[in-house]
């Protein structure tokens, strides 16, 4: 064996004997520090660590963003049920965009030229779109327009 290896072996093989009682005491001190540290880690004050974990991984970041978008859209759809009830009433008065447009057009005509203008517009519409059932009169249209 080379002298270098010999001295290395000699240093490595130096024995150290440890008293078990005081060793236990030292380990209990270490354990105390460990338990304090782990208890602190589990405390609710350290909740922001979850956010740090989410933002560290791009995949979890994306999932969190998707969740937020879904939550916001769900919230806005179901936010005010009162408003939704109002919209159903409106839909009872104005059934379709075509009807809304027709009533608006008739209303403008009436304001400009009175009942004659409305009659003229109806005649023009009949000419353009073809004949309508005879039972529908201007009065009926106006009644429908006024909602009564």
């Amino acid at each position, binding site marked *: 064996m080379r002298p270098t290896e010999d001295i290395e072996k000699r240093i490595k093989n130096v024995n150290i*004997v*440890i*008293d078990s009682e*005081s060793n236990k005491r030292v380990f209990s001190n270490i354990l105390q520090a*460990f338990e304090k540290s782990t208890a602190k880690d589990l405390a609710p004050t350290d909740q922001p660590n979850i956010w740090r974990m989410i933002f560290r991984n791009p995949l979890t970041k994306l999932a969190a963003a998707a969740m937020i978008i879904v939550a916001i859209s769900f919230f806005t759809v179901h936010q005010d049920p009162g408003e939704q009830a109002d919209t159903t009433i409106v839909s009872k008065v104005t059934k379709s965009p075509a009807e809304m447009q027709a009533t608006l057009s008739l209303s403008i005509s009436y304001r400009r030229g009175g009942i004659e203008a409305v009659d003229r517009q109806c005649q023009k519409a009949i000419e353009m779109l073809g004949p309508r059932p005879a039972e529908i009169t201007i009065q009926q249209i106006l009644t429908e327009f006024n909602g009564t």
Partner: protein
Amino acid sequence: MLDDKLLIWKFNRGSINALSRIYEKYRNDLLRLAATLLNDIGDAEDIVQDVFIGFAQSAGRFQLTGSLKGYLATCVANRARNRNIEAHRRKTDRLNGNDPVTSNLEKPDKRLMNGEELRQLNNAMAQLPYEQREAITLHLYGGMKFREIGVLQKVSIKTTQSRYRCGLDRLRSILNSKVQK
């Protein structure tokens, strides 16, 4: 190495068993390292306990980049160096005529039954320059590579190797001369 990674993983999840295994695995080497660097068993015990307490406090966020033994050995070496500087400062103060601040408290229980072999080696080590002593103990007890020791001592790998070899030669001559007497 893999075993250490697994132990650290369990340790970070609050396993007492993992902490106990780490302590049992590296305690002796770290104690020998500290005792050789400081030439004082009581101080060595204090330092090893402090290092393990610091390590235990990092549970949950400890990240291992190199070897665990190397990490713990570096902690012990840094603390030992600080304590040596402190002791040197106290000695200088005493020589300058300032009253040393002494504690009335007794040293903690000696849990090391200081064997004759360890005492002889410590005495021989104490005659080496601190850098050589550190290079030898970190390599043999801390299991650190010369490159890592070089980083710790802020010198090149060649200087570390040279310190190690010179230290061993000197140590051999000291120990052999004692045997011949």
